């Protein structure tokens, strides 16, 4: 799983946040656009791109983009 590609996929979910905002350390829940709908989009992206099913707690426990990457990576 390519990290750069993952960050691109992650950035594509957001409508009003520029892709350049996203780095491994980005605390995405602190962004203005963060909402429960974005959370569902992350779960859909993980399923579509990596065939990994994220649970609610995976999203609740993750703080940074790197955290989400690591959960998906661990289930591949």
């Amino acid at each position, binding site marked *: 799983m390519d990290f750069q590609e993952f960050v691109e996929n992650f950035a594509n979910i957001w409508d009003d946040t520029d892709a350049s905002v996203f780095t491994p350390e980005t605390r995405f829940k602190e962004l203005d656009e963060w*909402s*429960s*709908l974005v*959370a*569902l989009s992350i*779960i*859909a992206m993980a*399923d*579509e791109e990596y065939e990994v*099913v*994220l*649970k*609610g707690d995976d*999203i*609740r426990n993750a703080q940074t983009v790197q955290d989400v990457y690591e959960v998906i990576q661990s289930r591949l």
Partner: protein
Amino acid sequence: MAYLSISNVAIRGISAAVPTRVKEIKDLDFFAPGEAEKVIGLTKVERSRMVREGQCCSDLCYAAAERLIADMGWQKQDIEALIYVSLSRDYLTPHTSALLQHRLGLGKECYAIDVPLACSGYVYGLSVAASLMQTGQIKKGLLLVGETTSALQSPHDKTIWPLHGDGGTATALEYDEHADNMSFHFATDGARGDAIINPDGGTRHPITAESLEYVEIEPGVKRNRTQSVLDGMNVFGFSIKDPPASIASLAAKEGVSVPDLDYLVLHQANKYMDDKIAKKLKMAPEKVPFSIMQYGNTSSASIPVTIVVGIGPKLEGEKAKAMLCGFGSGLSWGSALVTLDHIKCPALIEVE
């Protein structure tokens, strides 16, 4: 694996009823600016229907049943089984199916039972009715499936209220030695029971004064403990994985290919999820009818409501193979492969 195959029972007709009162999603007051558009963009629910005060799920099912019985020309005394699938019951006791047996004017020689299931309920109810009738002793049966989610949820909870609508349906079944088999797959996972739960109001946590106090969980999310709590993320993860797997396993067991079937009728969870399920199964979009945009997620009623609204007029003139799939609280899910052979399918009924 929980498979079931039933012979000698045919679906003769399906009808559906909704209340006239409209829930317009863009006008709901709990959304932050711009939020309604985003929610509608994802779920595609623009509006739905809800009962007025004093109107019950059984009233909707009653209207659907009366129309269907009249259109088919059935004699009421011949109907010897009535299955009522809903979480919304008129009273704690007696059971609602008994009240409907009387109200519909069915004879006393009648098997009547309530099945308290939510979004998976249509598929389960169909298996209960068909199982009872397959030996041919009971020749005609009615399956009444509906929900008034508006009675179970908080109107101040933006995580659930914009999704759902109320509806009641009737399905007529008849013993027929020439009918194609009906086949099913079922699954249950009570470990995920808290994914959709009304915490207080059963015997585990009876209603107290505190149960009725509204608590603000976050802005736009206010509910009391008798009302539904939906763990959206876990339900979403479940819905894009387990239902398509159930459908695929039943199709494989029956030796059919989903894209070759005439219709795939999914529980109307939300449009985004259902599109993903259909895409996973490689089903052509024009063979996947929807009702969610105008009627919302009507829980157990959503499959028959979608059949009536989406493909009803066509079904009267064709013999179609359809895969049905219901999934929701429990967690509970199931699929059914059925034949709809020139069935009666009256237009959607609106109840004042």
